[in-house]
């Protein structure tokens, strides 16, 4: 497979997942702001921090003031994370990135999946999306979520299950590890440091986090209805059967990379990335039996985010564009 094409596949997958994660998080936060009697800044500042756009928000929206009312303004925060063309993580940029990568490998993406991507792109550029955003916020996020889910489903059901799809899925999974880890980290930090801890509020917060990750039903099944900070953290980190848990995503990403670059094929590039992903996978599963206390959650998640960042870089260097070392003698 052509390295440039593999690169587009990988980033196509990452942008799909990023668009979906942003839509999920914003939708869940709207509902959280209504349900839990939290100071608005507690909700929206968290959202901005999770997206990694704290500095830009501070200068662009909050007038360089840490106590600016914009930190608690759900409208401003949402508009920023949906429409800001300069932010690398805004919904409109993710959808552009998704479409640009797909169009660059138009001959690789199946016709039906391409059409789903293109329709989302056209919808986003059309006035109808702005109108929906203004009049029916939940419908807006739902449309994005469903379109990205449709795309992922069509990719799996209409494409050959070989290298291009493996690279797309590798991108989806590594992006998902990141999204889950950051969401959990920031929320865990915020919720365990609430000034007035209150059981009802805390329950609402954890449920909202689970909903943002489409995991509330799955969690409640596993936990028999008991909601606790440690229970939720453990579920999102280690639950092997939940498709958005860190353990599940890291393990699946490792399997995808094994298909792309079999562990025994030492002559092929990609060995370093594969080994690092294997080590991370092993490390995550080993954490399952250990207690999660104090700053343990934060330290664990920081390690995961850092490792995933390095693994993505290594994949890029080894598989997605570096020129070949030598020409084989044919």
């Amino acid at each position, binding site marked *: 497979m052509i*390295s440039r094409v593999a690169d587009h596949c990988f980033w196509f997958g990452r942008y799909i997942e990023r668009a979906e994660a942003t839509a999920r998080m914003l939708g869940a936060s709207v509902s959280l702001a209504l349900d839990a009697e939290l100071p608005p800044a507690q909700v929206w500042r968290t959202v901005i921090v999770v997206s990694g756009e704290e500095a830009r928000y501070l200068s662009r929206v909050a007038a360089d003031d840490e106590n600016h009312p914009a930190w608690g303004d759900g409208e401003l925060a949402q508009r920023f994370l949906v429409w800001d063309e300069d932010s690398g993580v805004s919904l409109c940029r993710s959808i552009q990135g998704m479409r640009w990568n797909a169009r660059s490998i138009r001959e690789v993406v199946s016709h039906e999946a391409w059409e789903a991507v293109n329709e989302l792109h056209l919808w986003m550029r059309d006035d109808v999306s702005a109108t929906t955003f203004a009049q029916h916020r939940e419908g807006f996020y739902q449309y994005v979520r469903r379109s990205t889910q449709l795309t992922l489903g069509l990719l799996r059901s209409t494409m050959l299950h070989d290298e291009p799809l493996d690279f797309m899925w590798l991108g989806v999974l590594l992006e998902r590890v990141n999204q889950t880890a950051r969401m959990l980290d920031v929320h865990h930090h915020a919720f365990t440091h609430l000034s007035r801890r209150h059981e009802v509020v805390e329950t609402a917060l954890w449920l909202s986090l689970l909903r943002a990750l489409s995991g509330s039903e799955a969690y409640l099944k596993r936990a028999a209805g008991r909601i606790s900070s440690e229970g939720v953290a453990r579920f999102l980190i280690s639950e092997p059967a939940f498709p958005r848990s860190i353990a599940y995503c890291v393990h699946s990403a490792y399997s995808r990379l094994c298909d792309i670059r079999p562990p025994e094929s030492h002559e092929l590039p990609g060995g370093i990335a594969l080994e690092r992903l294997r080590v991370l996978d092993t490390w995550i599963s080993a954490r399952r039996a250990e207690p999660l206390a104090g700053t343990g959650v934060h330290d664990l998640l920081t390690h995961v985010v850092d490792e995933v960042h390095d693994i993505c870089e290594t994949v890029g260097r080894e598989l997605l564009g570096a*020129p070949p070392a030598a020409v084989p003698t044919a």
Partner: protein
Amino acid sequence: MVHSQSQSQSQGSGPGLFDGYPALAGTFDEMFAEGGVARAPFARIAGLLAKVTNDELARSQALAEAALLHQGVTFSVYGDSRGTEKIFPFCLLPRLIAADDFRRLERGLQQRLRALGMFLDDIYGDQKILAAGVIPPDMVLGAAGYCATLRGVKPPGGVRIHISGVDLIRDPDGTWRVLEDNLRTPSGVSYVVENRLLSKRMFPRMLDAARVHRVDHYPTRLAETLRSVSPTQASGSDGNAVVLTPGPYNSAYFEHSFLARTMGLELVQAPDLFVDGDKVYCRTTRGPRRIDVIYRRTDEAFLDPEVFRPDSVLGVAGLMRAYAAGNVALANAPGNGVADDKAVYPFVPDMIEFYLSETPILEQVPTYVCLFEDDRKYVLEHLDQMVVKAVDESGGYGMLMGPQSTAEERDEFRRRIEAEPRRYIAQHRIELSSCPTWIAERGAVEPRRVDLRPYILTSREGPWVLPGGLTRVALKRGSYVVNSSQGGGSKDTWVMRDP
């Protein structure tokens, strides 16, 4: 969607499509003869179309355009930083071609492509046609498309014009005439296939009733053509063909990806390829892979910075060495531009007689070659009636449209022709044929001028003509310009099977 129910409902209610159709005086109408009667081979299909109402057609037309946009069947608009893409305007009313007519075109095009191929072999070989005095050597060797460095290089498989598109027009008598040959990187064939998909969706019963030749096997034939010239074919391998595109910013990118996708080949960009030991390789996730056929949609000038433009970033350094060594087939072969040069065009009928000893089947547009004294005298005396073209310019530049010109413009061209007669040819303006066309803003069917670009694939076994083609239509009222960049659109072209 036109389905049986709405068709029966529409009978007798509201005006039919062709009620009050105003034929365009002085043109040959493709569907209707004098007096508004449908031409005999099209009587049945014209009758079916006439039952569609304007409202139904407007609705189908809007659906078709939405489908094109959703599927991303678009071209990039150059100079637009937001990367705007547009659909190529499309008219659902098909352009019909009778079986007899097309059979003649087919034979004529095959003959023409055989002669043009032999001409290229000769020019890059012994140059017998020049020695025989059939074409003035200066016309050929001075052409911008002539590549002296390629003399003596034999293309793998012996084919040079794998893919061609020949532009044809029809004069007021209904005579088909070749307007120009496109032997380098002709585009538009993806619209032929896509337009047919729209016809199938919008007019399913009609298409069936009309007994139309299919066009969707073009990509399969193209893939066979490419395989047939693979230099490693003899060793039993299936070869490894790719499509080379300048990239997603190119206006024809949709077509490049379309062809790669429908042939199941990889679409590569220049940085994906490199040359080592005069062999071409592709950079893959599993290391280099040998490539032996390249359907290149990059202009020759950008193909190899070692040979052509050194500033090209769209090229592959060393590609021409690999080609000259016979290790990679390029489709189309570099150097073809000498055969579709405007100055060489007037001599194609002479080539047919010289190489094939046959009488040319297809007419072309009578052309005056200013290098010849008699022709030059005639052109200078009739400048106000002629279209004068500089042979080394295209896209409407360097042209004098005599009937619309001012005295100063004519004087300017007179000076230029006298200074450099070789650079100029002249033709009388030919009135293009017209075709019933849906004009949305007027909510009615009106005649508009059309041309036709059939596509010809040449493999080791010889030329094959796709029974169909791209009908381009000048959508602006009174316009002769069919180019998509200047208000042109396209139509599906229905070539009738034998009755």
